[in-house]
């Protein structure tokens, strides 16, 4: 009988946590797992949409499993983590929301290409910027203007993409950056202000020698 006690406590907690998790998943049109003590998925509920692919599915299981391991290690903090209250069950939704405000647009004529990037560039969205820059450089325009004046967030990964762009542009393409106050500051902080040709706007970058 003595052995039963902790087991029941575990089940009570699991039921309460499962109910909360379901509510959260419904609210966020996410997915919700209920796990056995050994971290195997005993029940799975999907609300709003199905998982994008098996990989995402597997990844969620792995994350939940890790949470349980940490829970054991940190004693009473496990309750918060294990109940799935501590974090968003559907972070991909949040990351995908970046797509509404973040994007890149390329226009070009014979002499000049202008790539405009808007929104937030972090580890999730920077690959978009990298791909667009590579595409812009493919035809080796004499001048490539990167208009970054409407960038709202620019992490070190995105700064890295600019350095990569400069290296890829080499001697063939002259790279010019249009930056607002925000990015001008970041570029200065990482010591790259002298490395790039900086302009306050895309039109300044274009008129500087008659384009």
């Amino acid at each position, binding site marked *: 009988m003595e052995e039963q006690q902790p087991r029941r406590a575990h089940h009570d907690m699991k039921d309460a946590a499962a109910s909360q998790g379901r509510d959260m998943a419904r609210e966020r049109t996410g997915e919700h797992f209920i796990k056995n003590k050994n971290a195997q998925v005993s029940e799975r509920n999907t609300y709003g949409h199905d998982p994008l692919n098996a990989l995402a599915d597997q*990844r969620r299981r*792995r*994350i939940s499993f*890790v*949470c349980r391991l*940490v829970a054991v*290690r940190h004693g009473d*903090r496990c309750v*918060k*983590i294990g109940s799935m*209250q*501590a*974090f*968003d069950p559907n*972070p*991909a939704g*949040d*990351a995908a929301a*970046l797509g509404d405000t973040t994007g890149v647009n390329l226009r070009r004529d014979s002499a000049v290409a202008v790539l405009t990037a808007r929104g937030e560039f*972090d*580890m*999730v969205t*920077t690959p978009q910027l990298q791909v667009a820059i590579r595409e812009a450089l493919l035809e080796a325009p004499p001048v490539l203007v990167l208009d970054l004046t409407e960038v709202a*967030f*620019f*992490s*070190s*990964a995105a*700064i*890295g*993409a600019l*350095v*990569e762009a400069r290296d890829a542009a080499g001697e063939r393409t002259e790279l010019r950056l249009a930056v607002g106050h*925000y990015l001008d*500051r*970041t570029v200065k*902080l*990482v*010591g790259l202000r002298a490395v790039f040709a900086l302009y306050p706007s895309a039109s300044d970058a274009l008129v500087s020698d008659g384009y």
Partner: protein
Amino acid sequence: MSPAGESDSAANHELRACRPASVEYVTALRHEVADWVRAHQLTGDLAADVELATYEALINTAKHAYPDDAGIVDLHAHHQPGLVRITVTDHGRWQPPEPDPGGLHGRGLPLIRALPDHATIDATELGTIVTMTWHPAPSMPRA
């Protein structure tokens, strides 16, 4: 209910969150920090710096603390007049930065050091604690 759960306690001075250290979760957490910063009427360069420095600390954890598997990252944000303090804690081991990383890597740590007024990185066997503080001039009392 706020996604941060218990973070609304203590007169909303604090934001506490514990998340899987993955790129997607870190983006979601960055948005929570940006909301918290706005809720505290922190604006301009300070607001931008707190968001960027916090993101760099979080993403360093996602990239370097748990090379083999996903781990957990803890965030604690604290604000009182004249002080903003962000603490990012992981339970893994940061890999030493490469000498000449180039490309996408290697600019996170310089930003963590340059953006706040003061930054410390304590690497121990049990994990790494990044503490970043800002000392903004207290806002003027209302007339």
